[in-house]
């Protein structure tokens, strides 16, 4: 990371960025907003604050709250993985991940460019939906002759199978971990730092892959806020968190 840029953004909190969480819908959107509007390096997206900001702006009474929460949790998790993949490709190399290979800047740029186009498309769609709201069609509709409609029994049976199986609770433990530990891990790191420097390896020894990634991102956020410093004597060497006096 470029030292002068780091200096410039250190201590800068997310609320200083012109962030409109209301229109946020995914990690790519966050990255684009920060890249295009706020001139921030992508690896300095302060995740922990993003969560706090989201929670602060959250209005439970609004429609689609569950959908928005789910999107947010999913996006936060994706962002964590994205950061960890882009920042520590070596840590991923030994892992079992199939689709989680490290992401080169070119690949990320490609993904973001395609996403940017789709997002602009979405904005034009929003305008069109708004401009075309409030049309209601005729209620004088004649029922089509019985016998003309064909319903495929296979499709119906497949649908039944899907609907009734959907009731088995989906595995959400990983979601729970992410939403809880994002803040928890920041706290955990700060608590650990109270008694001196901590190595990333020790801290994450008993954590699973996702928790380790979250811990790493939490540490980056804390570092960008100037609450700790990261020290790594050589590339890919052991990483130590040091308290800022």
């Amino acid at each position: 990371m470029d030292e002068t840029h780091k200096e410039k953004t250190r201590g800068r909190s997310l609320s200083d960025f012109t962030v409109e969480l209301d229109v946020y819908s995914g990690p790519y959107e966050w990255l684009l907003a920060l890249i295009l509007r706020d001139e921030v390096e992508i690896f300095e997206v302060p995740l922990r604050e993003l969560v706090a900001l989201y929670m602060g702006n959250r209005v439970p009474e609004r429609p689609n709250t569950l959908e928005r929460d789910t999107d947010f949790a999913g996006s936060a998790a994706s962002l964590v993985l994205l950061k960890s993949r882009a920042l520590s490709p070596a840590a991923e190399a030994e892992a079992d991940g199939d689709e989680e290979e490290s992401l080169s800047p070119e690949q990320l740029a490609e993904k973001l460019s395609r996403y940017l186009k789709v997002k602009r498309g979405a904005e034009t769609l929003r305008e069109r939906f708004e401009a075309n709201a409030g049309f209601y069609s005729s209620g004088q509709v004649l029922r089509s002759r019985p016998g003309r409609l064909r319903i495929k029994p296979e499709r119906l049976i497949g649908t039944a199978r899907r609907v009734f199986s959907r009731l088995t609770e989906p595995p959400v433990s990983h979601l729970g971990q992410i939403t809880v530990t994002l803040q928890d891990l920041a706290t955990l790191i700060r608590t650990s730092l109270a008694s001196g420097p901590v190595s990333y390896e020790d801290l994450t020894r008993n954590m699973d892959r996702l928790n380790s990634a979250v811990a790493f991102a939490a540490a980056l956020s804390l570092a960008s806020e100037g609450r700790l410093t990261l020290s790594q004597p050589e590339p890919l060497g052991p990483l130590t968190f040091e308290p800022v006096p």
Partner: protein
Amino acid sequence: MTGGPDALSLVEAVLLVSPLPVNLQALRSATGLRDAEVRDTLAALEIRYAPETSGIVLRHVAGGYQLATNPSCAEAVERFREEARPAPLSSAAHEVLSCALYLGPLTRGGVSAVRGVNSDAVVRNLLDRGLLAEAGVDSDSLGSPALLAVTEDFLAATGAASRDDFPNLDSLVGPEELARVRERLGSAEEPPESD
């Protein structure tokens, strides 16, 4: 803009969307117009939709007003009806039908509970299309809601002679999933707590 739609437009729009004749009271309350205004408007619409000049006519029937096709156009309408491709069923419609087929007769609340989303609009559409019908009421539940079942037309559309032509529910999902379905159905049928 001169401040919103005129009385004629409002009444016209309400008449278009109503499948049944609309009485004066309903017209007043939907449009916010006074009685005299509604009556004047209907008189104007009677001219606008006169049988001599229009394929759509205003009928005064069954204590209400309704837009309908001009009988002189009946042939074209029948031909259209004969040839029109029926609107395809949505995924949501397939889900509701599969609930009625396998778990029915059940209430609207039961359908919504199993699917996990409010299904009233989809149910209404399927009733309109004659693929679902109300078959009795659930008198154990508060308000005795109607029970929904699939119809003969539904069976005909699937090419099935009877419900027995479909595979057994047990063969589609496991016992654990089935138990959850029943649990959800059970809680939907329970009368809501009074507050």
